[in-house]
């Protein structure tokens, strides 16, 4: 437990505290009055309002479109189901910049819709909402669908036998059982869209701004650190509240249900209704998830003779000191380092949390571990720059800074994946081994490890994909001459001209292929109870 606590204290709490302090403490005096000043400003209130309503709208839209898919994936058996499950998860681990550029290629200036019908949605709120659905579709499908596939279908059958109408059976049996999972999924989607950065930054134009984007603008453009600090605190409070509710729904879900093997619950579709549902879901997935990705890939091949890909190896393009393709290598190295850190930290934390004798204090750490997911990545990145600048911890020149920031985002996924599996390991096995004279290390190696190995791999895979795509903090601390893939994509996108655009699309495609490959491997490794993701 000491190591994860030290890690989060040093690389999360301290940098965030440092930046908030720098913003709110002027000449040694706390300026808490600033909080009220900032909150009462009309344009900040406007940002708060927009952040909240677009998150609510995005969540509602995502639930509306993804819940039927959760049912289809859980209850219907059709060819290519496993592949499709992996496909819908690709957007979730894609960096927001890539998703943003994919949508730009679809609905932006000279995008596909613009070419076909002259429709432009960029700089409208619709582009933002659709991109949010694109991202979070998998959260609902995996969280709700995962549980749905394990609900015993005989309960509904029994209810029907006893004379309940289909709607009554749905209302009284299925819905109550599913409700906590739906609530948990909705809260996660709300959290991700509430703190949305890349999507809004790329698709929103100067008019729309979420809290997170506003923190970025106040820090890098306006240079008003005290406003940025207040906004950070506000976001902190909001995220804390969301996580508290989320933790509560997770606990309810863990205790209340008797589950069955998901492989036994799916059936071939029967009747016109189920076929129509299946077709509808497939159509939605094709339009909303596959089409943007396909457009992106097509754009990357538009210049003749793989021109965009060949331009990537050319250092003379001027955007960077190095050929953009070296960003691929840089990113992979960073992601491997970040994964190692995340697995060690997250694994140790999960092990501590899973212990039966874990006290209330330790369990509250569970929610704290999720905080980096919702706290402004810009704040973390900026905090790194100003907090980790004195010996013995002057890391700003060091390459390790980027993996550390990425590991902060990866670790919560490791914890969420490992925790349910570790909790399922029977404590009596460990006790028996200890009684028989095994050292704690040997108990871990011979009892725990074989049982959690697959979960560990899945956790590592998720941490890898998430680290690879991390943008918010990395964009702030990556040195200009050593960009990661998402940073390079963003920088290419910000430059005009066909050549840069083509290169951005080509790099995005490479990134997408790497993420998708990692994900397909995960899909093969997946056990039926590897956590929530």
């Amino acid at each position, binding site marked *: 437990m000491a190591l994860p606590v030290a890690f989060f204290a040093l690389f999360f709490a301290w940098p965030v505290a440092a930046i908030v302090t720098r913003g709110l403490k002027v000449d040694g005096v706390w300026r808490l009055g600033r909080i009220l000043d900032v909150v009462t400003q009309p344009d900040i209130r406007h940002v708060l309002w927009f952040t909240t309503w677009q998150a609510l709208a995005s969540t509602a839209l995502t639930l509306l479109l993804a819940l039927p898919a959760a049912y289809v994936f859980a209850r219907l058996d059709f060819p290519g189901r496993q592949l499709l499950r992996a496909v819908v998860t690709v957007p979730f681990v894609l960096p927001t910049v890539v998703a943003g550029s994919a949508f730009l290629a679809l609905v932006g200036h000279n995008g596909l819709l613009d070419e076909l019908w002259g429709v432009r949605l960029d700089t409208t709120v619709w582009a933002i909402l659709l991109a949010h659905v694109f991202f979070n579709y998998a959260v609902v499908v995996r969280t709700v669908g995962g549980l749905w596939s394990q609900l015993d279908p005989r309960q509904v059958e029994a209810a029907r036998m006893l004379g309940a109408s289909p709607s009554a059976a749905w209302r009284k049996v299925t819905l109550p059982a599913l409700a906590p999972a739906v609530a948990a999924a909705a809260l996660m989607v709300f959290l991700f869209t509430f703190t949305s950065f890349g999507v809004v930054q790329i698709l929103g134009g100067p008019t729309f701004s979420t809290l997170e984007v506003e923190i970025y603008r106040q820090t890098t453009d306006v240079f008003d650190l005290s406003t940025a600090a207040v906004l950070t605190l506000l976001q902190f409070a909001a995220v804390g509240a969301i996580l508290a509710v989320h933790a509560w729904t997770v606990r309810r879900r863990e205790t209340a249900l008797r589950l069955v093997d998901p492989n036994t619950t799916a059936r071939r579709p029967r009747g016109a209704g189920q076929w129509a549902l299946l077709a509808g879901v497939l159509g939605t997935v094709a339009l909303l998830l596959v089409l943007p990705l396909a457009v992106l890939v097509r754009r990357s091949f538009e210049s003749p003779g793989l021109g965009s890909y060949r331009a990537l190896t050319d250092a003379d393009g001027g955007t960077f000191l190095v050929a953009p393709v070296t960003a691929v290598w840089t990113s992979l190295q960073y992601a491997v380092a970040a994964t190692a850190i995340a697995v060690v930290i997250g694994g140790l934390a999960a092990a501590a949390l899973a212990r039966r004798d874990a006290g209330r204090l330790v369990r509250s750490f569970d929610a704290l571990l999720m905080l980096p997911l919702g706290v402004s990545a810009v704040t973390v990145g900026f905090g790194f720059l100003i907090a980790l600048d004195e010996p013995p911890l002057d890391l*700003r020149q060091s390459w390790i800074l980027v993996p550390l920031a990425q590991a902060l985002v990866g670790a919560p996924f490791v914890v969420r994946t490992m925790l349910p599996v570790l909790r399922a390991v029977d404590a009596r096995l460990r006790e028996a081994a200890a009684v028989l004279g095994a050292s704690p290390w040997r108990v871990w190696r011979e009892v725990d490890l074989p049982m959690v190995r697959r979960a560990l791999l899945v956790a590592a895979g998720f941490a890898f994909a998430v680290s690879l795509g991390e943008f918010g903090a990395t964009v702030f601390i990556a040195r200009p001459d050593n960009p990661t893939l998402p940073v390079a994509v963003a920088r290419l996108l910000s430059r005009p001209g066909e050549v840069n655009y083509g290169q951005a699309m080509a790099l995005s495609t490479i990134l997408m292929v790497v993420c998708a490959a990692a994900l397909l491997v995960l899909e093969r490794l997946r056990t039926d109870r590897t956590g929530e993701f």
Partner: protein
Amino acid sequence: MHIKTFVAVAVGLGLVTLSACGSTDAKGSADTRTVTLVSHNSWSVSKSVIKDFEKQSGYKVRVLEDGDAGQAVNKAILTKDNPQGDVLFGVDNTLLSRALDNGLFQPYEAKGLDKVGAQYQLDKDEHRVTPVDYGDICVNYDKAYFARHKLAPPQSFADLAKPAYKDLLVTENAATSSPGLGFLLGSAAQFGDGGGWQDYWKKLKANGVKVVDSWDQAYRQEFSGSSEGKKAGGDRPLVVSYASSPPAEVIYAEKRPAAAPTGVATGTCFRQIEFAGLLGNAGNTKGGKAFLDFLVSRQFQEDMPLNMFVYPVVQGAKVPADFTKYGPAAEHPENMAPAEIADHRDQWVKSWTSLVLK
């Protein structure tokens, strides 16, 4: 518990070692053969000119381009205890006070500064920054559009708010782009504070002004007069850009036209002066000083106009004929004292944002 403490200490030590390793291979800090220039994205110089400097001084030049002018300055302030390079180029008169108030630079009086016009030396007592170039931020117009519509192009700030020019102007976000900020300051210099410029912008907004985040986006995508804008299907014939943009259109054209396809609304200009300075904790102070001397040398100053499309500040430096032929400098650009900009900039940008964007 002891073991865990040990592990924590060990990891801590490991990180320290890593950081030590990291700083040795981080370039620029201790290397005295390289001089590192931090700049905004628009830095450009002829290869032969930079080669000459490298040969004469013995330093190798490394360039880090770091975003828009404002972002480059802000990040330099954040990292000033341990800067990314030796020299920062691209602080302009609109951001000068922020850089100076934050103690970004150390003083150095560049060799050849005596030949730089006095009107550009905004820090002539302390020499923390060296003037390098100047230019004018002005509204450009698409000549073809106005000929087609038999409309006289606008000439002044006030013209832009007239109904004849409704939905024609695209400008940049004053919070994120330096021409955007320059245009705002120009309007403030023209109409004054306390209602003046605010009313003007209300009118502009009612007249359908479009705001985008960057100059690139405005000029190369939304503007109908630039070659890239034409290709991208830009549909705004008025854009906030530079007085030197029309010659750039001619010089970079595939087939050189007899006249520039765009013109300058000469009554909408704001004078911008760009500076460079030696960063406070530069690793290579000597190299940085040599580079500042180079920036005000005649060779660099005469090379600059066709690379960055700005005017030299050194008296007697020749400006290429094409440059003056296709783009005469604005006659009476708006000006504003750095002190006045410093006092009002942040507040104005804030009210501008609420007024125009929200």
